[in-house]
């Protein structure tokens, strides 16, 4: 006993199936329904097209600050695919692809980035939380959702996302620690896109991988190629299956890259080299997935044209709908409580009077 290494019962492993060069590890390749594969591709592409469109809208002043998810689509999409409808998903703002899969319409995303609270409301029957802005804060209610799932005993699980930057926050730690102690059905997915605004992954934590942080909580960690949708699906399925059957939480590190700016308010040229971006471009999850489908004979040129046209129409329609959206300007008082307090009723009246005055003639001067 005097001086011995501690034996660590938890596993920390890496996983990759579909390499950037198109090679597939056929031992690990999941057998997916071709229709699903096509739908997954369509969703990934919708996300990419939406991203491009949102950037344009932002530059035209038709949208607020926008945070792209370019290059990170596979990570959330793979997770979303591996969940069942009644499982929970807790996103950050880089999980657009996964949420599109879950049924969130493009229109809602436009509302969100367009500055309307309505952008936070999932469609009926969709069990996802809206975007969380305070980094890693959502880990806590993600953990709480998993806790609720466990106490309900119906085999539901919760997948929760945060970024590599988010792992530095206390919330990340506390949530994972609770998940470990209560053996919660939580799949914690860290999108390690290598940057937290201008702070590189290497300056975010001295831990060599994010996945190994699992050891601090007595759980398994898996470092997955996050640009490889097959690996993301396999990893999540494994974690979900474990969670569903009482095996507890898993930490998944999805290694990916933020190909675009942090948000439209950001200029990445200030802090990162173009070379690094160039290095990652060929590893783009969309290119890789497309090549995979082509090789499998699931995608040909006419098929692609058709998908392109459908997506373009869908996005166009969403933009129209978004731009026609109107909101009662006094609405923001309405949802503070189930029943407005007397003081808020008075303030709402004040507000309505003010709004009417705004459209009425100016009061007479003091005599």
């Amino acid at each position, binding site marked *: 006993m005097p001086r011995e290494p501690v034996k660590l019962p938890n596993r920390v492993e890496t996983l990759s199936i579909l390499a950037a060069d198109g090679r597939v590890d056929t031992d690990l390749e999941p057998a997916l329904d071709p229709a699903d594969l096509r739908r997954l591709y369509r969703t990934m592409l919708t996300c990419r097209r939406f991203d491009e469109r949102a950037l344009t809208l932002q530059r035209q002043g038709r949208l607020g600050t926008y945070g792209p998810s370019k290059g990170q689509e596979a990570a959330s999409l793979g997770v979303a695919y591996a969940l069942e409808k009644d499982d*929970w998903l807790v996103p950050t703002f880089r999980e657009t692809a996964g949420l599109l899969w879950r049924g969130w319409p493009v229109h809602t995303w436009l509302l969100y980035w367009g500055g309307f*609270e*309505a952008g*936070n*409301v*999932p469609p009926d029957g969709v069990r996802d*939380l*809206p975007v*969380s*802005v*305070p980094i890693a*804060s959502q*880990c*806590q*209610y*993600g*953990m*709480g*959702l*998993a*806790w*609720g*799932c466990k*106490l*309900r005993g119906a085999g539901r699980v*919760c997948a929760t996302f945060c970024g590599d930057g988010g792992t530095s926050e*206390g*919330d990340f730690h*506390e*949530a994972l*620690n*609770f998940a470990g*102690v209560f053996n919660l059905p939580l799949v914690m997915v860290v999108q390690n896109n290598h940057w937290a605004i201008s702070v590189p992954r290497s300056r975010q934590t001295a831990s060599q991988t994010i996945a190994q942080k699992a050891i601090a909580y007595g759980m398994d960690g898996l470092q997955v190629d996050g640009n490889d949708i097959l690996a993301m699906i396999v990893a999540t399925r494994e974690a979900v299956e474990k969670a569903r059957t009482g095996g507890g939480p898993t930490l998944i590190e999805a290694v990916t890259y933020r190909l675009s700016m942090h948000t439209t308010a950001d200029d990445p040229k200030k802090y990162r080299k173009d070379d690094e971006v160039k290095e990652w471009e060929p590893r783009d999850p969309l290119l890789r997935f497309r090549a995979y489908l082509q090789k499998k004979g699931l995608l040909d040129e006419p098929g692609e044209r058709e998908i392109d046209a459908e997506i373009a129409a869908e996005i166009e329609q969403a933009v129209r709908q978004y731009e026609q959206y109107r909101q009662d300007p006094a609405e*923001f008082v309405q*949802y*503070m*409580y*189930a029943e407005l*307090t*007397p*003081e808020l009723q008075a303030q709402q009246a004040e507000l309505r009077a003010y709004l009417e005055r705004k459209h009425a003639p100016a009061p007479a001067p003091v005599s």
Partner: protein
Amino acid sequence: MAQLTMVKALNLALAEAMRENPNVLVLGQDVGLDEGVFRVTEGLLQEFGPDRCIDTPLAEAAIVGGGIGLAFTGFLPVCELQFDGFSFQAFHQVENHVRRFRNRTRGRYTCPLVIRMPYGGGIRAVEHHSEAPEATYAHLAGLKVVIPSGPRNARALLRAAILDPDPVIFFEPKAVYRAFREEVPDAPETMPIGKGVVARPGKDVTLIAYGAMLRVALDAAEELADEHDVDAEVLDLLSVSPLDGELINESVRRTGRAVVVHEAPRHCGVGAEIVARIVEGSLLYLEAPVKRVTGYDTIIPYFQNELTYLPDPARVVAAALETVRF
């Protein structure tokens, strides 16, 4: 009817709510086997088991943040924070999420949490165990902030807080926990959150208090009557958000004078809001400036000196006399 301390009355309210609704959960540090450091959760683990009376690891933000997720799955979590002074470890979860989810999602997701914590000074505790942060929470829109003053209203208000569809910060005055017993009816009661009561009617000056300061105000009123022939009305606010402005103004219009009493520091405390409401509602009725008898704008001193810091009847009497003699 039973004669209960506030601790027992709160315990009763928890047990009642848990019996009635299987979705009510209690979670926090040491709430299980230990039955809470003040024994408010006595017997709950035994009666409801470890899935409903949950001992958590030591992390306030996870207790509250976890509670949010539990609420989304249909539970009604009652989170215990061990002391007011450690509620700040969870403050970001309250500010960022608990108070915002209903509004953020236009009612789709709500946080009907109750966040209970022992509140205020007067029990000779070490640092961070005697804070009075009600103004900090009252300023956060989306919350309700309740502070009972005795066993009976504590039990009724905790029940109301658990039934409330919105998040309630529930401050339990430590100095009252075991200070006295009160008749508490057998049948569950609720009181409306946001309504104060007249604890002692009077006509010369209105003393406005809540929590442990209610006793101080009542004692002052007695002294004012006995020794100075001043008939003070005493209001027990019970909530500081919503604040019962109507009750306050109705009283002050009658008396023309008011003294606000709270143990929290004065600067930007709830007392200031009360003064503002009086000015907005009853300026022309005021016969004297409204006085604030409060904690000082300092850290509450370590316990050897805390009674110097906390408002006492003498300070309230002096302030009331100033308004009467103005």
